[in-house]
């Protein structure tokens, strides 16, 4: 009877060159393998990318690099980026043996187009047509800034299965049929197990025979699992990661946190006096100690330090930095800030900075109480600002209230993230786009929380998205950088990362700084590429 047990082979907790343990600190899951739902276990743990594949493999660590062909052998964009012609690979099969066709791809796009609920990126689909092995998609607006994400992060599903599903936004997709190298073996709220396909995959099968995705209940549990070796790959914030994680097995335990083109920083409400003065904001930017924040709040790795004055992380943003800012790094410069303020008419009275009208400069820094890294960052900013006489107080807000207040512009300054994408456009758009700006008191969920009003920036943002040539884009981006640097609508601090904590004890071949071929985060579409790169450590 023992051999019948589903647990018979699973008892050995770690190691072995047959399986890889993957973890996310997302709590118990319910059986849901729907690749379109961010709430599904597949998305939450990331294994949807092992079952379903994108058309192209885009590397968010090096967003400017061309995307690798994957289910598609190529994609041809029209110059205005409102139309694309995709050639679908002809040697791919679904796990039930049927061939992957252009029909399937077209069906997938139409499915998303028809269901707002699963059109998470609000992609402006026009017409989708399939002819032979090509699919042509038109769009209502330029896809330039979205193109890589769209191609690289849309899972392609088989038409013959999904056309029977009445509501793709509610279906748990209990028996997933995909084109990826793995199939579902078992599911429990705690662990999902995938096993490698025996045949029919369009490229060499990965060496990892089995993937075990465990959903740990929280960061603590995930960290513990990582440090005792029962989990080998995860994306989790580990405070003091050296002591807590690396030191447990310095030879094998590794952390890699490559930045992407999305950042975290201090949004300043530019409608409030005296913070409507760019000089003041500049001065503030000059004293914020990003390094301290990086080391103390982000444990020295989690939100990689942004050194460039443009707020663009390195290396992901390096290619986009305007010539005038190349190599220009932000450093803490208290005397400089003081001088700048002096010039602009501010007076430092002992420990208090008075604005030109004589009022002391005060502000409240606010973030939800539970977000410990932001809270820590705010504490650091507070003490930084004190050095130039700005009195800041930290408000630990309720999360809901914070969301509402930030969107409605009811704040002095707050830490928040920006959107991310394949170009810096997303970053600047989130911070400075006049189109999404709403008056104070009206929610502006699309961005520009600081109510930064700059027609030049708004125009540059639109130009960049709709431009039909690279030169125009470069010009627009350079303009955006200039405005960002000079007006400081937001003080950039750290980048978003798509990194991982992992162990090389059993498997090697992970991406790292020397070979950043993909994102490390197991929930990214790249994860599939990473798994395909893995080799047993002892071979």
């Amino acid at each position: 009877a023992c051999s019948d047990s589903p647990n018979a082979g699973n008892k050995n907790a770690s190691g072995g060159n047959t399986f890889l343990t993957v973890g996310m600190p997302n709590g118990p899951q319910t059986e849901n393998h729907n690749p379109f739902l961010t709430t599904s276990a597949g998305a939450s743990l990331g294994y949807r990318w092992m079952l379903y594949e994108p058309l192209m493999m885009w590397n968010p660590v090096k967003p400017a690099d061309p995307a690798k062909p994957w289910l598609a052998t190529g994609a041809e964009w029209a110059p205005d980026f409102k139309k694309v012609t995709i050639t679908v690979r002809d040697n791919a099969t679904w796990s039930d043996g049927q061939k992957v066709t252009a029909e399937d791809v077209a069906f997938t796009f139409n499915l998303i187009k028809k269901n707002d609920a699963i059109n998470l990126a609000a992609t402006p689909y026009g017409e989708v047509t399939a002819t032979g092995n090509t699919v042509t998609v038109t769009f209502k607006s330029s896809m330039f800034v979205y193109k890589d994400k769209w191609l690289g992060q849309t899972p392609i599903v088989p038409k013959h299965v999904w056309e029977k599903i009445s509501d793709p936004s509610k279906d748990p997709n209990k028996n997933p049929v995909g084109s990826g190298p793995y199939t579902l073996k078992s599911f429990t709220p705690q662990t999902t197990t995938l096993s490698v396909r025996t045949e029919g995959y369009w490229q060499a099968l990965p060496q990892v025979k089995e993937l075990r995705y465990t959903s740990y209940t929280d960061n603590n549990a995930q960290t513990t699992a990582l440090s005792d070796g029962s989990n080998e790959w995860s994306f989790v914030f580990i405070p003091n990661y050296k002591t807590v994680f690396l030191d447990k097995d310095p030879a094998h335990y590794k952390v890699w946190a490559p930045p992407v083109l999305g950042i975290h920083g201090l949004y300043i409400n530019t409608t409030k006096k005296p913070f409507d003065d760019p000089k003041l904001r500049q001065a503030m930017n000059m004293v914020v100690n990003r390094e301290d924040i990086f080391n103390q709040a982000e444990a020295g790795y989690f939100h990689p330090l942004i050194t460039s004055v443009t707020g663009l992380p390195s290396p992901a943003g390096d290619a986009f930095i305007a010539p005038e800012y190349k190599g220009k790094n932000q450093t803490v410069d208290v005397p400089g800030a003081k001088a700048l303020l002096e010039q602009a008419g501010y007076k430092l009275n002992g420990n208090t900075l008075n604005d030109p009208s004589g009022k002391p400069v005060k502000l409240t820094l606010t973030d939800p109480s539970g977000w410990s890294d932001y809270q820590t960052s705010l504490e650091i900013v507070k003490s930084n600002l004190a050095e130039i006489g700005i009195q800041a107080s930290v408000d630990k807000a309720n999360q809901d209230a914070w969301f509402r207040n930030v969107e409605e512009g009811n704040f002095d300054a707050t830490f928040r993230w920006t959107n991310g994408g394949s170009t810096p456009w997303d970053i600047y758009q989130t911070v400075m786009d006049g189109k999404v700006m709403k008056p104070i008191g009206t929610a502006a969920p699309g961005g520009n929380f600081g109510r930064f009003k700059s027609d030049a920036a708004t125009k540059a943002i639109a130009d960049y998205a709709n431009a039909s040539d690279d030169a125009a884009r470069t010009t627009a981006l350079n303009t955006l950088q200039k405005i960002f640097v000079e007006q400081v609508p937001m003080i950039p601090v750290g980048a978003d990362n798509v990194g991982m904590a992992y162990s090389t004890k059993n498997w090697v071949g992970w991406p790292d700084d020397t070979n950043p071929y993909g994102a490390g985060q197991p929930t990214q579409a790249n994860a599939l590429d990473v798994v395909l790169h893995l080799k047993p450590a002892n071979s």
Partner: protein
Amino acid sequence: MTIPTSSVEQVIPGQGAMAQPEPAKPGRARRKRFRFVANGKALTGLIVLGLYLLFAIIGPWVAPYDPDARGPALTAPPSADHWFGTTHLGQDILSQVLVGTRGVMLVGLAAGALATILSVLIGVTAGYLGGGWDDSLSALSNVFLVIPALPLIIIVTAAAPGGGDTLVALIIGFTSWAWGARVLRAQTLSLRRREYVEAARANGESTWRIIIFEILPNLTAIIASGFVGTVIFAVTSEITLAFIGIGSVSSWNWGTILFWAQSQQALAQGAWWWFVPAGLAIAFLGTALSLINFGIDEFVSPRLRSAGKTKIKTASGRTVRMRVGFTPVLSNSSAPHTHARPIPVNTAAATPVNRSKEATQ
């Protein structure tokens, strides 16, 4: 933590003899009101509680550092500079504990006071007025009793945005009065039938005067015990809320400290000093309050007092324990023992003769 430690609360009144002042027996003096302070447990509890109150008042002044202030020593173990060590930001944990005392005590006392007022209002009204008032008020308190309090508090607190200490105290107060109300109602019911209440009524006292001057003074021990019990509950609830990251957010309390310790995985880092002091502070406060409650319990029901001396030596040098059913025999009688001849104890004779069939006459 959630099981009320006070037996006054634990025991369903009317079924146990608890919570009922011992009926005064003819000739035996009733115990004096404030005698319970002389109770060792209560005194210990009161002293410790007094210390906490003191720190609640002077905490922020005696704290060596600003609890928010960052220092150069990050996650440092206890040292001469930082007696309780520091956080990942170099904040002084001792200062956080000291400053946090006020928030904890304020919420605890405020919630306790609110719940006590509600329970007195509802319980005594229901018990004294009886009839329809009683039916509806008892139903209300029974509902509140059965609805699980902590989840309710968590949900309400989480859902009410921007809440501060006041809100937390209000919510805890509004959700935890039911026990007290039930105990008080039962007690009032029995008090209402006491002759002195009836006598006051027969003498022409007005209803409100009877409630306030005749009934309430006799409920003080129970009210106090309920208050202390609610304070314990309120303190743990508040800390719990802070620990899981909802509720009071704008000020330091011990739960906040533990929240940070937990989110920074102090355990995994080996930074025991980060969570031990706050936890001990809670535990000692809880113990002090429980002790006070024991004191009240024992005051209300003197039987519960563990007898000071329970073991005695007999003349023969044997140690005998006082126990129910077997009164110890000592032979240290002050009167001279006139009948000196010891009677030989015949164990065989001690076996009763079976007389069941025998006719006795």
